[in-house]
């Protein structure tokens, strides 16, 4: 950075001053003559000391400075303000990266306490430093694995200085009546395909049709129509059951595909508008670190950018129908357990309506339909 001084020179014989400068090899980069007795000159910083030595009767007054010396002067003038500002920013960054509260949203108090203890162990606790995005994902995964039987889903979000942890509890089947004597009944109508009996009496043969509520494995032990005892029937009942699914799918197809391109970028957010050093045309953003203030709608930070490809397409009837079937199949598979599957599917009817296609599909599934039911003797 070149450093310059702008100096006002006043004296009786200005031409003599110019001679003096020339003799002392002082470069006058620019000379503005104001009057016979006054000029304004621009000189390099290195010549300033020489100029002061030869000034003699001439009066020199620094009007302005350029370059590093100007910055130095500004810094010296405002150093208390600048240092306070920098310390303030560092302190703000430090504070905004601290955690002041961990807030768990769940109805189950016991589970809440367990997860809070685990989060503490992982370092998500009051007055701890903010965790990186990857670490939070890892913690989520480990908690989910640890409580795989009780937690269906967990989300850890950071909102300012607060960690908000949302837990969705896994719903347990309500048909477990361990201590009582029970029958196993069908909870759906279907054709019995497989029976695994641990305790109790088989009431229905394989390939027989049962209605919802029919006893499949009985907990009543009989001999010649007399009840000899009651047991807790145990076993599994697999049957072929049927579903009629009605699903609609838009003919105008929109899809968001994540490319593998991702990067970190600095950003400034003013109001709702983002300004980035680099950005993808279409992308999803997630802030890693940010400095924000509630009073001023300006935010600075670093974010993760994931490039996405947006496809807006119009589907043919055939394509939309196939996608609708696929969607219905996916939804149905979500409700099935590992040992259950779709046996067959059949499209019954389809028609287009209001720029979407409506499809009726018949599914045949292999599914566990046994449900415990308490024995009530009359």
């Amino acid at each position, binding site marked *: 950075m070149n450093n310059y001084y702008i100096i006002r020179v006043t004296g009786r014989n200005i031409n003599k001053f*110019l001679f003096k400068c*020339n003799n002392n090899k002082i470069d*006058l980069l*620019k*000379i503005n003559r104001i009057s016979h007795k006054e000029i304004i000159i621009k000189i390099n910083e290195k010549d300033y000391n020489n100029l002061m030595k030869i000034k003699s009767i001439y009066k020199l007054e620094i009007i302005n400075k350029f370059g590093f010396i100007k910055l130095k002067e500004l810094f010296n003038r405002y150093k208390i303000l600048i240092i306070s500002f920098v310390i303030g920013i560092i302190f703000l960054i430090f504070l905004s990266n601290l955690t002041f509260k961990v807030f768990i949203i769940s109805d189950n108090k016991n589970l809440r306490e367990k997860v809070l203890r685990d989060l503490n162990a992982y370092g998500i606790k009051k007055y701890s430093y903010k965790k990186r995005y990857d670490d939070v994902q890892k913690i989520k995964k480990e908690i989910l694995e640890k409580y795989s039987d009780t937690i269906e889903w967990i989300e850890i979000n950071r909102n300012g200085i607060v960690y908000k942890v949302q837990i969705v509890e896994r719903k347990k089947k309500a048909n477990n009546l361990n201590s009582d004597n029970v029958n196993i009944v069908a909870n759906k109508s279907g054709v019995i395909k497989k029976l695994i009996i641990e305790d109790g009496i088989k009431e229905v043969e394989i390939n027989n049709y049962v209605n919802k509520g029919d006893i499949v494995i009985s907990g009543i032990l009989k001999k010649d129509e007399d009840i000899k005892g009651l047991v807790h029937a145990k076993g599994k009942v697999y049957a072929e059951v049927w579903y009629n699914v009605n699903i609609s799918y838009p003919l105008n197809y929109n899809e968001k595909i994540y490319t593998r391109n991702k990067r970190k970028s600095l950003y400034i957010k003013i109001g709702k508008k983002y300004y980035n050093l680099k950005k993808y045309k279409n992308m999803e953003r997630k802030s890693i670190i940010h400095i924000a203030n509630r009073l001023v709608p300006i935010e600075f930070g670093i974010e993760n950018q994931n490039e996405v490809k947006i496809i807006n397409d119009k589907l043919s009837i055939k394509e939309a129908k196939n996608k609708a079937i696929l969607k219905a199949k996916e939804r149905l598979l979500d409700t099935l357990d590992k040992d259950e599957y779709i046996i067959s599917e059949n499209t019954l009817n389809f028609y287009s309506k209001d720029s979407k296609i409506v499809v009726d599909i018949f599914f045949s599934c292999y599914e566990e339909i046994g449900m415990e039911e308490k024995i009530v003797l009359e």
Partner: protein
Amino acid sequence: MKLVDDIRSYVTDNEFKMIVQNKIVDILNFDLIDKISEDVVIVYNHKQKIKINGKSLMIKKLLNNELLITGSIISISFEAYDE
């Protein structure tokens, strides 16, 4: 050695030059300034005395090897002299 001298002169550019444009005289590689006034500026190189006559002459730039004069130029005279 001529080649070396040529290269040296090209790189260092010590040759006396005078560029005269409308109301501007730029003198490069002069030896000495003898006089500065509103009507006349006299400079020397190692062979000549250069006298610039004009009106409202002003020095706009004064470096170790360059002198920039502005003003109404009336005449420029060159006079040989022995060092």
